[in-house]
């Protein structure tokens, strides 16, 4: 959508009265297009979708994004094009749905103790000796310096690759809260590694 058309849509959405229904329909169509785009990109993750079609998911995402956009319309400050701002709500709603559907029938087992016990060497055989030493130090610090919650969240997200939205749903938490826990765990590990004299140059 051209920039001017996006700004025109914003004005019509903000103005009550005749034409607002048409503007709302136009907004929903934009959101549906964005949701379909996101779901199309993640089609491989939805190969096993049962009962519910990709189009159902796109519609649900567009509907929820529509509610979010209308609720936040007055907070749009023009730091981006209006269409870019609108699209992000649909992309977010669709992306979260795809991740959760992809893991719908998969059990999330957070077993930090098992990971720490088996001597995981998944840094890869090509890693230099220093990197393996660093990895061993990280594993030791995960076991000794982090809280149980930090350990579980770190292992689930960074080792097991559980999507953060899926973990949030299973732990009755939020993406923001879990990322804060992950962030605190990473800071703690970095601080301890630096204190022990490990070279973290070039990491992250």
């Amino acid at each position, binding site marked *: *959508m051209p920039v001017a058309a996006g700004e025109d849509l914003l004005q019509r959405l903000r103005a009550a009265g005749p034409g607002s229904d048409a503007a709302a329909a136009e907004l929903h169509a934009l959101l549906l297009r964005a949701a379909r*785009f996101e779901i199309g990109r993640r089609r491989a993750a939805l190969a096993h979708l049962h009962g519910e079609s990709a189009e159902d998911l796109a519609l649900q995402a567009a509907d929820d994004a529509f509610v979010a956009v209308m609720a936040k319309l007055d907070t749009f400050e023009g730091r981006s094009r209006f269409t870019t*701002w609108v*699209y992000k709500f649909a*992309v977010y709603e669709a992306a979260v749905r795809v991740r959760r559907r992809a893991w719908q029938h998969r059990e999330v087992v957070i077993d930090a103790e098992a990971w720490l016990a088996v001597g995981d060497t998944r840094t890869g055989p090509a890693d230099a000796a220093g990197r393996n030493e660093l990895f061993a130090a990280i594993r030791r610090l995960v076991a000794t310096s982090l809280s149980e919650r930090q350990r579980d969240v770190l292992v689930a997200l960074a080792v097991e690759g559980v999507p953060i939205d899926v973990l949030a749903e299973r732990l009755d938490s939020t993406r923001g809260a879990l*990322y804060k826990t992950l962030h605190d765990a990473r800071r703690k*590990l970095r601080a301890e590694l630096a204190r022990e004299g490990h070279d973290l140059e070039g*990491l*992250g």
Partner: protein
Amino acid sequence: MIDRLLGPADPEVSCDECFAHLDEYVDRELLRGDAEKAMPAFAAHLRGCPACAEEHQSLRALVTQDAG
């Protein structure tokens, strides 16, 4: 694996702040080319959070397609 365990070295925004500024970051990338320089804590978060990074990639691809 080590990168995923330690995350970004630089200060980063939260997931909520990332969502709040995602549109601004993408438009800065596509229209001005100065996103990473202007919003370094946002860029650091994208290196540490796979979910936000996926959404960033998708929004950028969608807006790029729109422009084409």
